[in-house]
């Protein structure tokens, strides 16, 4: 059985501008010990997907309008908030893009890690402190015993992200969601953090969902990739297959937009146009307005995710039988 199964998830936002269909029928599953990458550009729904799994979508505007999220067979969307709290930060945890804004500036990092240990694991203060130091050592923070007393502003960006990872690991999670974990970091520090996440994933046999706009990060980390566009998954495949042979015109366009370090091109091939507005989605294929293969047929109705050989999926009329 899969650890996580997301089925036809719909997360909509109700605002003055109308109904924003941020996530509109997303389906995927994740096995134990695997790394799934979700890649896409701003507004494609990748972060809302992850917040939905944590059930952290802002309840004043956002609503889960359909589908289910099964975590070990149990539908998260139907759990009472009290039960959800036992999962969140414990069996499912999350790390965010900007470690400075996700850490509380007025508490020591030790205190912030211990909080979750005391809450979820029922440890006393002394046990929690010991475990916090262990966790900081696990994520490669030197002089952990000393650092545990420090405040977030005393740490560099890379160190803060390590602290965030330590906090996320406090509950021994089975699933770690990493939302743009290295976007705010410099390349050499990004390389360190990705290396750390990879080694932790193996050591602790966790499943990871890594959400990013950076195909390079996906290539480094993920076993499988889902490419999102305008609230839909447009393509899903094993990482190597996706990079060797992308099928969906959007995936191809995305890859062509990135200059290759190995080979020089005169001009970058670009995707023309813009992502459609959440409040005004095209009726048919959402990528059609920017697609060079688009025809009248594409604009008629929504395109289904077609299963191809080898278990990969693509949402494109050209692959429908």
């Amino acid at each position, binding site marked *: 059985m899969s650890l996580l199964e997301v089925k036809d998830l719909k997360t909509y936002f109700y605002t003055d501008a109308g109904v924003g269909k941020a996530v509109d029928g997303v389906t995927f599953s994740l096995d134990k010990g695997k790394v799934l990458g979700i890649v896409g*550009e*701003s507004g494609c729904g990748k972060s809302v997907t992850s917040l939905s799994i944590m059930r952290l979508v802002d309840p004043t505007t956002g609503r889960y309008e359909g589908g289910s999220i099964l975590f070990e067979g149990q539908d998260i969307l139907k759990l009472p908030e009290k039960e959800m709290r036992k999962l969140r930060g414990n069996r499912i945890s999350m790390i965010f893009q900007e470690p400075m804004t996700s850490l509380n500036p007025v508490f020591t990092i030790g205190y912030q890690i211990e909080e979750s240990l005391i809450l979820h694991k029922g440890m006393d203060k002394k046990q929690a402190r010991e475990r916090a130091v262990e966790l900081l050592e696990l994520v490669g923070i030197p002089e952990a015993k000393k650092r545990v007393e420090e405040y977030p502003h005393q740490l*560099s*960006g*890379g*160190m803060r992200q390590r602290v965030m990872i330590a906090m996320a690991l406090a509950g021994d999670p089975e699933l770690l969601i990493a939302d743009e974990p290295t976007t705010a970091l*410099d*390349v*050499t*520090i*990004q*390389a*360190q953090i*990705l*290396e750390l996440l990879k080694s932790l994933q193996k050591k602790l046999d966790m499943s990871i969902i890594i959400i990013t*706009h*950076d*195909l*390079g*990060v996906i*290539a*480094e980390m993920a076993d499988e990739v889902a490419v999102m566009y305008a609230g839909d998954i447009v393509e899903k495949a094993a990482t*190597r297959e996706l*990079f060797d042979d992308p099928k969906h015109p959007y995936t191809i*366009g*995305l*890859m*062509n*937009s*990135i*200059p*290759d*370090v*190995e080979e*020089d*091109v005169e*001009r*970058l*091939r*670009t*995707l*023309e146009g*813009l*992502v459609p507005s959440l409040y005004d989605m095209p009726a048919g294929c959402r990528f059609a307005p920017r697609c060079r293969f688009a025809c009248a047929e594409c604009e008629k109705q929504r395109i289904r995710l077609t299963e191809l050989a080898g278990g990969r999926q693509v949402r494109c009329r050209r692959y429908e039988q």
Partner: protein
Amino acid sequence: MSEVLVDVKNLKKYFPTSEKDKVVKAVDDVSFRIFKGETLGVVGESGCGKSTTGRLTLKLLEPTAGSVSFKGQDLSGLKRKDMRALRREMQIIFQDPYASLDPRKTVFQILAEPYRIHHPEMSREQIYEKVTGLIDCVGLRPEHIYRYPHEFSGGQRQRVGIARAIALNPEFVVCDEPVSALDVSIQAQVINLMQDIKKEFNLTYMFISHDLRIIKHFCDRVMVMYLGNIVEIGSKEAIYEKRRHPYTQALLSAIPNIKSKDKGERILLTGDIPSPVNPPSGCPFHPRCSQCMEICKKEKPVLRTMEDGTQVACHLELS
């Protein structure tokens, strides 16, 4: 060798800190030249001084020491009035197009401003013609000129930023992380636009970025900075293929590999970038360098010129 457009000599910029006797050495003695018609890429991680160097080059910041010459003219001695005239020829495109466009002005007002200031003799009709020409040139539509910055997407806003930079027909444009805030598919559009504009207006670019892939694609020569110093400067080919400086090697090997299957040996740097308030003795890179020698801890290496013209600041034996 083609004509030198910008000549930077021993440039330093120290910023004061709250502690009296401590300064941030943001740029610590850099010298380089930019040739007419080329694109010089400046790459490095946060705090390496690349943006400060860009601003010093345009005299948007006053240097602590050293000089910048533009077309043979030393900027430091210039009077305000003369500097203003020179500003027409040197422009900047900023990273965040939202922060650098006045939210209360329409695109027309934003783009008309350079003409109003520098060409007060122009009539409204003439300005209108110029602005619509610019708008067309950067791929926006005529009806866009009456809109406000918030009505545009990030990529479109950056197009407005580019239009403003080229309004007065400059010769030299500093591009400070011009696509870092944009989505990848939009990045490619803006990069292509900047390439077209360079050709059309015969521009010389100083292109500041932390993105090594874009630098490789866009630039002719590359300057690698670390902690306020130039560690290596040379042709794009020399920098990316020879990889002489250990920091350049680490930086290039840290780029996540997308297309090729073999991942190659990654050089993982340990530790963080040291603080520019208290930089290491000797070579600024020595605490993170895997090939550090005794001399590196004591003596700061100077830029040495290699056979192919590349300059490298390293004590290692290089060729």
